[in-house]
């Protein structure tokens, strides 16, 4: 008996090496769920389609394999939209399979009909509407291929119910992909590579700025840095592409970057951007960004070149193939440049100096000047720093960090250095609250031998809290560190700074009791209230087998420092003196 479209779908996924699918059933995908019933494909039932999309995304980021998510037509499909947009912004390989109403019912506002192809066009790399079951095997192969090659991204495949139910012609199972309009350039142009290499070798003050696209090139990046003695700053998405504890790692740049990374950007003479896209959160005022530098821009997406800044030497291709070609035979050193950068970490630069000399780049007189000092902390409160330092010391190099969005995300970036690529799982481009919990469970399933720690906030956690059920059901051993400040901290921080502390709608209060809630899901939980708890209960919970919710009470006035106000130049940092220690001093 010939396979049905749905059976062909499942067998193609299996054949292509897909191990997990995340999803939620419904009328239009019943044929798929029936085909899954006897399949070896592992299906994770989340409690919301958005959760399924983020879980597949977290799995994909952690494993560098495409994540697969299934949802039914109509509301199931529209619930995926945030997940797709999130994956699109961060270039995550995702294949979303949605059921569609019977082909004869399309366009008639039928029950649970939504034009998901039209809806998701701007947030997917490509999408399909399949009405003929015979094309399912080819389309699925193409979708996986498109999602995970070139600049990765999400692909949606919408399949009508009749296409899933009809029996298809057997030979089509081994249909090959056919994509004449899809070209991926991986190797860089030899002339550009030569020009770049010369420029790097001549540079007196070179700097590497690594983004999410550098993750796959981690090893060559390390080699390049060590051969040429070039300091590295990474974006939020680039954390882990270069070892967080390496002495040449300057930390993150941008809005909440370190003063030494931001000043290195302003002072460097050659800036090597690798798999990064000069996002506004990273560059600050674009016209004052890296004013003294010639820019080498390496990216697999030609459209990124020249989008935000003009590159002096653009190289289109895969960093993994290009970086080794930039290596020379000679070893270089830049001791003066590195010493100069490190000076920015010295206290003399970081004291409040309202009348210090104007910055020569932007002519701003208060280079590292602090506006009124941050409000006093209640002495007894646990600080995010204390908590996360204990987390880092307890889990060590087995750690995969997942974050939500807001202050919790920035603190995680500042205090939890990761040393391996693909080990800092965060919603960078879209900044999706609620991403963390489902992404963490997906990452944990993908890398069972490491420990996923989710750092989240009370606002974010509640945006996909239903996934506690998924964690409990499948016993996925994620450790959830909830930094509970009882406010929408990051928004509140902006209100403090830019809106005269008028706290409009940012106080969430003390409901729910997260530990009680965890126990409703049969998950163990603990409250960390004091600094002593931090030293005792926290490590104990982190080292317990299985999932755990760790709720830490922190002061709502805790802020993320330093900070470059939106639109300001990278040298205009507020509270530089409060920056966490640099890698070379840890």
């Amino acid at each position, binding site marked *: 008996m010939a396979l049905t479209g749905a059976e062909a779908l499942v067998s193609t996924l299996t054949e292509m090496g897909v191990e997990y699918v995340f999803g939620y059933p419904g009328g239009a995908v019943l044929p798929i769920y029936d085909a899954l019933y006897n399949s070896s494909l592992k299906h994770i039932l989340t409690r919301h389609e958005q959760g399924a999309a983020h879980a597949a995304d977290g799995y994909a980021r952690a494993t560098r394999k495409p994540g697969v998510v299934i949802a039914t037509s109509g509301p199931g499909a529209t619930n995926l939209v945030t997940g797709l947009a999130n994956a699109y912004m961060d270039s995550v390989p995702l294949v979303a399979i949605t059921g569609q109403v019977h082909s004869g019912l399309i366009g008639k506002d039928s029950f649970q009909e939504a034009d998901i192809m039209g809806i998701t066009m701007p947030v997917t790399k490509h999408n399909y509407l399949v009405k003929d079951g015979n094309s399912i095997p080819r389309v699925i192969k193409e979708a996986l291929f498109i999602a995970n090659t070139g600049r990765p991204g999400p692909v949606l495949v919408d399949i009508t119910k009749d296409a899933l139910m009809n029996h298809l012609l057997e030979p089509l199972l081994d249909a090959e992909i056919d994509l004449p309009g*899809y070209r991926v350039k991986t190797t860089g142009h030899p002339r550009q590579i030569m020009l770049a290499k010369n420029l790097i070798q001549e540079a007196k003050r070179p700097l590497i700025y690594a983004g999410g696209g550098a993750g796959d090139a981690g090893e060559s990046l390390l080699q390049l840095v060590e051969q040429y003695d070039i300091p590295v700053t990474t974006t939020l998405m680039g954390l882990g592409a270069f070892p967080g504890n390496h002495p040449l790692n300057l930390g993150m740049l941008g809005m909440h970057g370190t003063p030494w990374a931001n000043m290195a950007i302003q002072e460097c003479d050659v800036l090597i951007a690798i798999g990064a896209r000069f996002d506004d959160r990273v560059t600050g005022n674009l016209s004052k960004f890296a004013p003294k530098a010639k820019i080498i821009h390496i990216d697999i997406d030609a459209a990124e070149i020249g989008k935000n800044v003009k590159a002096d030497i653009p190289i289109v291709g895969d960093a993994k193939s290009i970086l080794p070609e930039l290596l020379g035979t000679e070893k270089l050193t830049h001791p003066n440049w590195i010493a100069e950068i490190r000076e920015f970490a010295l206290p003399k630069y970081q004291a409040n100096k309202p009348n210090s000399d104007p910055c020569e780049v932007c002519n701003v007189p208060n280079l590292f000047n602090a506006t009124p000092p941050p409000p006093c902390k209640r002495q007894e409160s646990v600080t995010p720093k204390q908590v996360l330092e204990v987390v880092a010391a307890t889990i060590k190099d087995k750690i995969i960090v997942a974050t939500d969005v807001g202050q919790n995300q920035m603190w995680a970036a500042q205090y939890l250095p990761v040393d391996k690529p693909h080990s800092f799982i965060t919603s960078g481009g879209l900044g999706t609250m609620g991403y963390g919990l489902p992404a963490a469970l997906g990452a944990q399933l993908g890398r069972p031998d490491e420990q996923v720690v989710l750092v989240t906030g009370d606002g974010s956690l509640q945006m996909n809290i239903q996934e506690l059920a998924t964690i409990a059901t499948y016993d996925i051993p994620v450790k959830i560190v909830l930094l509970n400040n009882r406010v929408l901290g990051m928004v509140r921080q902006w209100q403090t700074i830019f809106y005269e502390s008028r706290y409009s709608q940012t106080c969430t209060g003390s409901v729910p009791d997260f530990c009680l809630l965890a126990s409703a899901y049969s998950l163990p939980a603990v409250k960390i209230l004091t600094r002593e708890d931090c030293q005792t209960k926290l490590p104990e919970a982190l080292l317990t087998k299985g999932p755990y919710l760790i709720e830490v009470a922190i002061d709502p006035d805790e802020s993320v420092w330093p900070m470059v106000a939106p639109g300001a130049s990278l040298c205009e940092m507020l509270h530089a003196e409060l920056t966490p220690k640099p890698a070379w001093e840890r």
Partner: protein
Amino acid sequence: MSKVTLAVLVNNEPGVLSRVAGLFTRRGYNIHSLAVGPTEDNSISRITIVVEEDEQRLEQVTKQLHKLIDVLKITDLTYEERVERELALIKVKGDKRSEILQIVDIFRAKIVDVSPKEVMVEVTGDMEKVDAFIQMLDSYGITEIVRTGKIALARSAKN
């Protein structure tokens, strides 16, 4: 700002026009005119787009278009030897028929429909010619115009 003419070959599949148009809206590029139709190969359509943008953004337009999986080839015809045509149908009040006929003659246009009150005229040519023709007819009272958007084809090599 400058105007360029792009010939974009795309898979002749549902949704492709919407992808191209959506890309322009989303990235905020200005479409001056757009014409779509099949080519010698039935599975491929050709979209002729006239875009008005500054240099840097024009480069972005082509690069972003290239990323669409259904886009097979993009040719910038702006600096090529090319033939450009646009077609317009114009309804004009028929009071001064003989004067209109004269203008129609000069522009090598055609009367394609006549009624007691109006005549319908067809004109083809490059954008400037169509503009000039419409301007000439304007004083006779134009009641309706439809224009196709520009199509263009590069000339073949002469040797």
